[in-house]
């Protein structure tokens, strides 16, 4: 009987020659590769990471003050990005700064995205009083200004001035927007028939949330997460400025910009390298987020500019 029915459904406009079965990861990678700005951005990000983590091993100066470094020198062969008035090599500072900033930003994003997504998905899936309690907590966290809480908590936590301390504190208070986004998406997704189909097959709540709801919310989650990276970089910078974040003699991109804010016109080499690097990181992350979102969505058209 299958002979006959193959005819009824088999030949079809969508078909053509069947592609060899490919692993899902490879399919996603192939789709990602078609998104050129994302691929370029990934290369830039890799270069930045290499610069930040491998650079200090090769460059003779680190981020600290050295008596051998002239004060307030313009960029030159010995110090390509110049020096500070205290006697730091700006290139050495930049390497260290990018390193610290990347570590903080990625840690914050991973922690906050996971927590926020699961929190929002659970609230949206179960609805009722579970939702009410969980989302009221989110509301409470949301109405307290992020910077004030982070500053207050950061100053009082042991290790609060190391990069992971800073990252943990920022993450603990920045997952709420993601949870709201995910909850909204899940509220509509849970009514779809494929969720009902999974329930009818006997799937557990955990399976439905992890296997069906969260993957289908991937688009908004990735968009929110890329925005969060930018937020994390800025919050870290602000904390450093207020004296609650990473502190001298250690250095971060934010701290460097804050230190150089009065020197933007007089000694531009202090201000522009860290400032432009922040912009570059945020931009690159956004492109990668775009590419990922499209690559993860099987409905996206395969042809892209």
């Amino acid at each position: 009987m299958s002979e006959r029915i193959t005819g009824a459904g088999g030949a079809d406009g969508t078909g053509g020659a069947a592609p060899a079965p490919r692993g899902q990861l490879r399919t996603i990678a192939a789709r990602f590769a078609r998104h050129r700005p994302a691929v370029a951005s990934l290369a830039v990000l890799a270069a930045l990471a290499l610069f930040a983590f491998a650079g200090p091993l090769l460059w003779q100066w680190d981020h600290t003050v050295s008596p051998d470094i002239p004060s307030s020198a313009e960029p030159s062969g010995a110090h390509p990005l110049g020096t500070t008035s205290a006697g730091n090599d700006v290139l050495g500072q930049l390497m260290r700064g990018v390193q610290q900033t990347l570590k903080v930003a990625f840690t914050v994003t991973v922690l906050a995205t996971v927590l926020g997504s699961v929190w929002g998905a659970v609230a949206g899936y179960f609805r009722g009083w579970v939702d009410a309690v969980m989302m009221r907590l989110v509301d409470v966290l949301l109405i307290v200004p992020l910077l004030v809480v982070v500053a207050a908590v950061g100053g009082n936590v042991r290790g609060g001035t190391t990069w992971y301390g800073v990252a943990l504190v920022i993450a603990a208070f920045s997952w709420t927007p993601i949870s709201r986004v995910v909850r909204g998406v899940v509220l509509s997704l849970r009514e779809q028939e494929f969720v009902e189909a999974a329930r009818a097959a006997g799937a557990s709540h955990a399976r439905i949330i992890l296997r069906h709801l969260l993957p289908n919310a991937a688009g908004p989650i990735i968009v929110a997460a890329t925005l969060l990276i930018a937020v994390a970089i800025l919050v870290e910078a602000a904390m450093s400025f207020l004296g609650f974040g990473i502190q001298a003699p250690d250095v971060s991109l934010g701290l460097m910009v804050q230190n150089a804010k009065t020197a933007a016109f007089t000694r531009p080499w202090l201000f522009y390298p860290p400032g432009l690097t922040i912009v570059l990181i945020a931009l690159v992350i956004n492109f990668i987020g775009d590419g990922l979102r499209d690559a993860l969505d099987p409905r996206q058209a395969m042809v892209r500019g």
Partner: protein
Amino acid sequence: MTAEEAVAGAVGQGGAVLRIEDLHVSFPTEDGRVRAVRGLSLELRPGEALGIVGESGSGKSVASLAVMGLLPRGAQVSGSARVAGREVLHLGDEELSRVRGERIAMVFQDPLTSLNPVYTVGRQIAEAVRAHRAVGEREALARAVELLAAVGIPRPEERVRSYPHELSGGMRQRVVIAIAMANEPDVIIADEPTTALDVTVQAQVLEALEAARRRTGAALVLITHDLGVVAGHVDRVAVMYAGRLVEQGPVEEVFERPRMPYTLGLLGSQPRLDEGRSVRLAPIAGAPPTLLAPPPGCPFAPRCPMAEARCTEEEPPLRATGDGHLAACHFAERLEGRTPQEVFVRSGEPGARHGAAPSPAPAPSAAPLLRAEGLVKHFPVRSKGVVRRRIGDVHAVCGVSLELREHETLALVGESGCGKSTTARLLLRLLVPDAGRVEFEGADIAALPRAELRRLRQDMQIVFQDPFASLDPRMTVAEIVAEPLRIHGLYRERGGAADVERLLRTVGLGPEHAARYPHEFSGGQRQRIGIARALALRPRTLILDEPVSALDVSIQAGVINLLEDLQEEFGLAYLFVSHDLSVVRHIADRVAVMYLGKVVETGAADRVFAAAAHPYTQTLVSAIPLPDPRKERRRQRILVRGDVPSPSAPPSGCRFRTRCPKFAAELSERERARCVEEEPPLEARVPGHLTACHYAQERALV
């Protein structure tokens, strides 16, 4: 003879109110030009009713939108369309406005979106009147009342002051018809006017269209996918496929002597109310071609069992094959006297169901597999705001009892909102009933602990209505089909990927489909994936929730045949939830008719259809159009008034009495009192045939 000459010859030289010549419409898209209409020519005589039939994507709606000048900006239109001698393609906005409404009017599918929600319907009708005539507001409103009365809306004086949301779907559609006839146009184009409506309401709306036509003398173009609707309401019919007209002629001619294999295939795919289970449907293989790059030759050739080399090389022109009958097929004459079964059912397969007789009726003594007793489900209606008090209940299911035996198909039938889908979900315990029991093989499902309930899910699975929403878009077909197995930890045990492949083959898909995602498939194929998933756990019962109602007729037939084959092969019991009585007639052993949360009639399908005893069943049966013009016109029709009452405030006594034709016309005052006061119990009239009506009386209506 060229196509145009043939058309002109067939129609005669009388003045046509609408003459379309060589109409081409294409849309530029990212993937290339979609050629939606390719060389359409047709004529409409004054007062004539022309049906345009086609499946989704055939270009039938696009053609009518082109005539109305309503296509989106990017569309490229060429050719000519003349309304009463005047060219309307490429008209300026202002001139076009004068033609629209005055000479040609349109009725759309969705009555909710074609009315403006912030104005009363009276004002909207008056607006249409005043757009073309210099009359005062008062006069226009008086005309609105008159028009509402003409389309059969009760108490039109009050209704003119209603807003669209205060009216039901059927009423709204009649308001749209009233607007269309406001200026006595020469042509009314109705694009799928009843597709969004229930069958009893469909009958009312078609009646209103007829009334509009009689009153204004307008010619009607009725665009639909439903062959039954066309059969009863038009004089001539035109069949469209892949943007072309492939057959045209007087309605009896086309239905009785189709000369294009596609038309024949459509007729063979359509389940009919007047045919029992013994006739097997003859589905058309494959799916319509993409309109991006239509293949050379006949667009139907890839699906046509008669196709020869010539068909793929040369596109057949529309040529005369009989009196006023045109067909676009090289071999039209070969269809002389052949049935769809002969042409479309491939050799080696019996045209009738295996063994001719319907599947053996289970012995009455057999213990039911699935039994429901007194199921009740109310959904709370809550107030808006913070407190969200419970301000009422939607009585979705009110005391439904059912029995499903092994290897049997029980159809649960009713209009939207009757509680049939809710009942299906209660049986599966996707919803928890407020009262009542569900037993599977004697075990009460409600009392089962979690783990046991999961075990039970292996025996009972569901197939959903919407093949687009019921498959997770982020999973491959293999993952979707394997999921139930993985959930129950059976994936390895049953053979992993090989078992998935076997399942796909069972539903007529190939192993090459496994790695693809659902969006790459057509509706019919997706439904097959859904069926494969439901079969993965080797269940004994399938709950089918409107499994074919989202599919085109030719695709639907293939899925119905598949379901029948699977039942034969695996001895499945089906609970088939549907609003489509023709499909039910074709597939069901027993039927339960639901109205407002209650079963009003149940019994063997043959008996219920042949001798319906409840007035509601009678109206349902008589409202289903037959795809047979002669029978359809002779049939006795029982029209119900009004719409289904709100399930949050069902009528007292018999729930159907507010719409019951018997209550309205035949019963005396004393008899009526009983209907109002006393709820009729579901009682056996003949063993196995139960009816909930105080005054049940059998009638043959097919």
